[in-house]
């Protein structure tokens, strides 16, 4: 019980910190997590260790600025197999997703 309270406390605290950045609702977060696992996973691997697309693990992305990654996800990369995801998510959601990728 105490654990649960603590956890809720943490979650509230985190959402305060990121308040300005319009974090996706928790239902949407679940959707995005599934998308990452299933749809991104089709090319980058279920565990993001890489497949036809490169690995998306934190250490691989460490040297790359957020803006590059966000643009890559929104717009895709022309001439490669990386497709644009903006039909399925907005910029805020992509920024959140990049955060997920970095913290794993």
């Amino acid at each position, binding site marked *: 019980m105490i654990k649960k309270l603590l956890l809720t406390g943490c979650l509230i605290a985190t959402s305060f910190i990121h308040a300005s950045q319009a974090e996706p609702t928790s239902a949407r977060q679940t959707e995005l997590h599934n998308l990452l696992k299933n749809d991104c996973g089709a090319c980058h691997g*279920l565990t993001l260790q890489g497949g036809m697309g490169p690995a998306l693990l934190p250490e691989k992305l460490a040297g790359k600025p957020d803006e590059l990654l966000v643009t890559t996800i929104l717009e895709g990369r022309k001439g490669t*197999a990386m497709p644009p995801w903006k039909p399925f998510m907005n910029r805020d959601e992509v920024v959140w997703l990049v955060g997920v990728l970095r913290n794993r």
Partner: protein
Amino acid sequence: MNKLLLASNNVGWADDRKPNKLMLKMLYPLGHKGFLSSAQPTILALMLSFNVLAEPRATGDLGLIIEREDSTALIINTTEHKQLAKITGLGDLSHATVVFSRDQRYAYVFGRDGGLSKIDLLQDQLAKRIVQAGNSIGGAISQDGKLIAVSNYEPGGVKVFAADTLELVADIPAEYAPGKRSKVVGLVDAPGQKFVFSLFDAGEIWTLDMKNPQKPAIAKFKNIGKEPYDALMSPEGRFYIAGLFGESGLALLDLWDTAAGVKRILPTYGKDDDKLPVYKMPHLEGWAMAGDLLFAPAIGKHEVLVINKRDWTLLKAIPVLGQPVFVMARPDARQVWVNFAMPDNNHLQIIDVKDLAVTNMLTPGKAVLHMEFTPRGEQVWVALRDDNQVVVYDTATLQEAAPRLAAQHPNGIFFSSRAHKIGF
């Protein structure tokens, strides 16, 4: 069938169904007077079946359903539509393919994490498992059934193993320039104890002759086109066809005339059109061949291409719902079933080959990832990843032919009838 079971069962019945001397010794260490009469083979068989084979089992109508997130595979009976067993500990199966030994006893599962698992369909158990690379995409079994080849992304290349022991027989790095190794895709078996595969990063097709396992002989075909993403072998084992992602058309190698080199099919098709985004790479498999026709997914266009095998020209481009992923002909070649990349992956479309047009659409559930026809095509099994179900359709009525089977995030269905097909 009986032979299969006998061979596997450790029981060692002679054909007259009497236990041999050694077994009697094991069973009746104190002599068998006063114990069971040896004329009761059923009881003996039960006692002797250490691996719980209560009933004899045939494996010709079995199959595997892969559960992508659980490292598990279900052994299923395709006639009775039921699950027989669950095999665990198979590693990362987010992408997986399966080939079968020619006696249809063993299934070899190639996982994403470089895992190669040998499953015993008779005894419901994992017979052996190795991790042979960091990241792999597929595999094939040799003409004689003695070799298993795996195509790897990391480190890029092909490794060949003995089918019985899974010991390494040959290691073929896909080195296309000094220090540069390519991801390998589209690995299939070919007649003459050969394997054929494509180098995604190099745009090459290689043939690997394993007639002498100590001396693998490689032939390389270069500049076949940019980024071959997958390939298929025609059912008779003559034509190897690789789909290209980075360029228009498909690359064709005629194994009856390798001196002619690789030529391009549909070199200019859709060349100057804007490409639609591809959210999942299509797959190519021998099922796409239906008689004189080849049905291939277009890339970045919502079309199925119908190519005339006699002269390799385009007969028709059939408009479909989305980016096709699997384009599979029913074994009698009258229908072609198509599934799609997201966001159209809740649907299936069915092309009538007589009219070369889409005649039906089904919406079985969430995330249709794969399908597999029964050997003669009266039914098709469909994996629904996000519904945790497998649906079985009657292909004539398009009605569901059995209650849905439960499976956790199924992403692949493979029947043991593949054992006897070239290119699978």
